[in-house]
């Protein structure tokens, strides 16, 4: 495809805004060592996230325990990311949101 916003430095250049070839990291949704209580969940509003197939969530777990107890669900209708701690003790996680569309 050859439409969209073309950026060139006079020698090199490329179309950067046609379908599906922008990849952004969004710091608004970055969490570092976020604590989440036992048997509770954290809802993150990802306004404008749009098509969930084009939104990537990278989760990092500090321990094996947290990895096995933290689940992620996405509600594309309401643009909500739900992070659940299914364990019986507090866990922590880090998360980043990426967008490619």
């Amino acid at each position, binding site marked *: 495809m050859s439409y*969209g*916003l073309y*950026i*060139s*430095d006079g020698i*090199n*250049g*490329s*179309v*950067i*805004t*046609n*379908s*599906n*070839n*922008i*990849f*952004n*990291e*969004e*710091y*608004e949704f970055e969490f570092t060592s976020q604590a989440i209580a036992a048997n509770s969940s954290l809802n993150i509003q990802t306004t*404008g996230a*749009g*098509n969930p*197939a*084009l939104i*990537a*969530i*990278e*989760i*990092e*777990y500090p321990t094996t325990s947290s*990895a096995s107890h933290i689940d*992620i669900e996405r509600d594309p209708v309401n643009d909500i990311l739900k992070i659940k701690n299914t364990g019986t003790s507090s866990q922590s996680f880090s998360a980043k949101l*990426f*967008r*490619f*569309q």
Partner: protein
Amino acid sequence: MSDYGLTVYNENNGLMFDSSRKMNSYVVTEIGTGTGPNVTVGPDDFVFVKVPYGQASNLTNTVVLWSSVMTLPPTAAGFFGRTYSVTNLSANIYSTTFTSAVPVILDYFVVQHSSNVSSTDEYGLVVYNEDQTVQFDSRSIKLGQHFQITEYYQTRTVDTWSPQNGGEVLGSSGDYIEISRWTRGTIGTFEAATDIVGLDIGQRLAINYFSTEINFGNTGVGERTEGTQTGTTASNETYRNHINGMILAAVLT
């Protein structure tokens, strides 16, 4: 959302740029074939790899990982491969042997935050976020190619490979697979245990293997020499069924 700034949507109404959000765009900064990129890869960056043309036979049953040699100071990270072989000892009991890690030559490209790519040019397009951080800087485009994400695998959702389980093929034929965010393993001549999270690059399968088998100095069945692991039963080798990290597949456009 602010009523000022630059917002770009694609034909599917997907948001591509929005200067009111705190975003940071990625651009391709290096494309090549070798044992690792020349640019310094930071924790925010991505490294995509695939088998070079005509090299598939040399990378059969090779698990590729992104790592650096354990020296002081550590060497720059690069591509390492460990070839594995599996022996079926009896019903559902397997023994896996990994060779020592060696540098492997792969096709690759690196994508980095646009704001992290320096330039002294005084022309171009810069898109700022509301807080004055840079969302996109056209001066970071150093190459005539961009990239397209073709598949995304959320953390812990990939069906990993094991002798008992065929695993999930990542991406499509010809895709590059990102390896810097999720692969790992010790690179050196000595290992206390074999712990490998890597990409079987020929088949595009994720492998998460661990063994605590320790029996130094011998090479018999069930014993391990430095840098080489041999498991004997399912009880001392484990193929974990998940990857703790997201995996991306992409193509150059």
